[in-house]
């Protein structure tokens, strides 16, 4: 689906706190809405829940946006802020066409006060690689090839995502890995086992700044859509309505799957910093053994992690 691009007037708050979700722990991320909408058309994407957005909205007044980023940095100087452009769109999918990230990357490189994360499923950094600096983290969502082939049809294949992450590491940059959404389907355990094998073979896990895990969750509107589209992979597991109204796997299953992946990853590299995206305190405790009860608690863990990586450089 080649959605039309609409350059809209840049106004309002385009740099915001990640909206999070009620009664679940958020990582305190800041989102920069450069692009709203995505051309990758993943079957489970939250953007599919919005009927009235048949185009990709582009905010390209970077002076305005960078002023908002700087303001956030000034206001919240007690934390090492993490900003990302992959909340309402893919950070890299349209970069060749829009070239919005280069000035943003350069800005973070000059400021040296916060991190910018490029979160993507599109394995190309050609347009930004010459400006990459230590203050930009390149991250990819990773999933078994079967899920990429069936549910993320227009995205880059796994081997290309891993190759690009390796290129970033080879150039001295830090990378992030996101297992999100993790989907329960017949045989997923084996597929994730091999996925983690591949990752650990290709990448230097000691230089992965963070790893997130988030099991599939979605709005009620998407549930009906998945049913009508007969999305067998997405609906294989057992879902309940969470306190935030979203569909999630039943808690016992979430714990089982997170634990399995957490152990697989930790067995590969004990020092990995693994966090759960939008999960409950009791799940954190059960999976990681850590008492993480609030967004502030998780933010503090991030601060510590980033300081370990950057030393006095941030």
């Amino acid at each position, binding site marked *: 689906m080649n959605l039309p691009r609409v350059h809209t007037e840049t106004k309002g708050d385009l740099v915001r706190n990640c909206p999070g979700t009620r009664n679940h722990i958020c990582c305190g991320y800041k989102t920069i809405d450069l692009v709203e909408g995505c051309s990758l058309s993943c079957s489970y994407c939250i953007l599919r829940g919005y*009927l*009235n957005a048949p185009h990709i909205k582009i905010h390209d007044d970077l002076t305005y946006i960078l002023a908002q980023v700087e303001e956030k940095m000034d206001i919240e100087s007690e934390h090492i802020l993490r900003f990302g452009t992959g909340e309402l769109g893919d950070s890299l999918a349209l970069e060749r066409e829009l070239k919005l990230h280069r000035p943003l990357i350069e800005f973070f490189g000059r400021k040296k006060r916060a991190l910018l994360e490029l979160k993507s499923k599109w394995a190309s950094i050609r347009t930004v690689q010459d400006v990459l600096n230590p203050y930009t983290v390149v991250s990819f969502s990773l999933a078994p090839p079967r899920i990429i082939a069936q549910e993320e049809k227009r995205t880059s294949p796994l081997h290309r995502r891993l190759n690009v992450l390796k290129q970033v590491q080879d150039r001295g940059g830090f990378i992030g890995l996101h297992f999100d959404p993790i989907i329960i389907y017949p045989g997923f355990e084996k597929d994730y086992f091999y996925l983690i094998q591949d990752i650990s073979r290709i990448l230097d896990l000691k230089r992965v700044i963070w790893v997130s895990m988030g099991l599939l969750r979605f709005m009620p509107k998407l*549930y*009906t859509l*998945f*049913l*009508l589209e*007969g*999305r*067998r992979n997405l*609906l*294989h597991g*057992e879902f*309940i*309505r*969470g*306190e935030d109204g979203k569909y*999630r796997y*039943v*808690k*016992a*299953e*979430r*714990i089982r799957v997170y634990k399995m992946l957490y152990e697989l990853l930790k067995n590969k590299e004990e020092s990995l910093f693994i966090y759960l995206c939008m999960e*409950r*305190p*009791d*799940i954190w405790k*059960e999976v990681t053994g850590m008492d993480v009860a609030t967004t502030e608690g998780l933010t503090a863990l991030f601060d510590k992690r980033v300081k370990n990586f950057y030393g006095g450089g941030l």
Partner: protein
Amino acid sequence: MEIIEIDRIDRTDTRFCVSFPLEDPLLFKSINAFGIRVPLLLLDTAPHTVVTGFKRLDVACRLGLTTVPCSIRSMSEKDALLTVLNDNITRPLNMVEGALGVEKMWGLRLPGEEIYAMMTLLGHEPHEKLLKNLLEIARADRQTKEFLVKHRANMTHAELLLGFSSTERSEIIALLCDMHLTFSQLREILQLLLLVKVKGERIPFEESPRATSPDALKLSLKKRTHPILSTFEQQLKEILAKAALPPKISVKVDPFFEKEFIDIDIRARSVDDVEETIESLDGLIKNGWLRSIFELTKGTHRN
């Protein structure tokens, strides 16, 4: 106005009919008592095509009338259809009638903007996906349309029902036709049935007794689609039965076993009541029943 013989009207030509169902018991009684008071609008063709008045004509035929009052006019198909829609839009059209109106416009290849404008008037968003749904509803079989009208279905219900094959749909309608269903019960049951199908299982029509209640049907479907949750519910029931709590204590657990906490309500009328309650709660703790409940809510319970 003139009076013409019904034989001069082509009753099979329903190009402009947006009424569904045609049968209208109240109109039948009214015409039987007072005759047709509002003339039909017919096209100046031979035989005549009905533009408005399908229900009146249906009643006339049922009553054995041989003539009807009518106005005969010459107009284009588009004008005729817009007249029909204009004539009907002020009454509360049911979902199928709205869909029929849109489908007739589509059939006449009227411009997209006009079709979307009509959808907006009918309370639908002017969106391609919804247009597709309306066309599907209009083209569905009579049994499906009747079911949608009878249950005052909304677009989600219709989409879900049309997600089944016609054979499955027929079985589902037979299963649900005599049930009194709320909006949410209908949606949940259709979702559960479709989930069974998506999961690659056969829909258990024969296991779902036709006279069962909506809740019983939901429960039996949930056992298939939500085995873990069903097991937890059963285990909670067993724990509470074994704990044999006095009526003044109630233990409330999140229905999805998602919240970390449980609520324990106590109703006491005296200090003695409170003492008795504390004793009961102490028993709950000592016997391990509370721990078992928390294992369910924390997702750590093992069979």
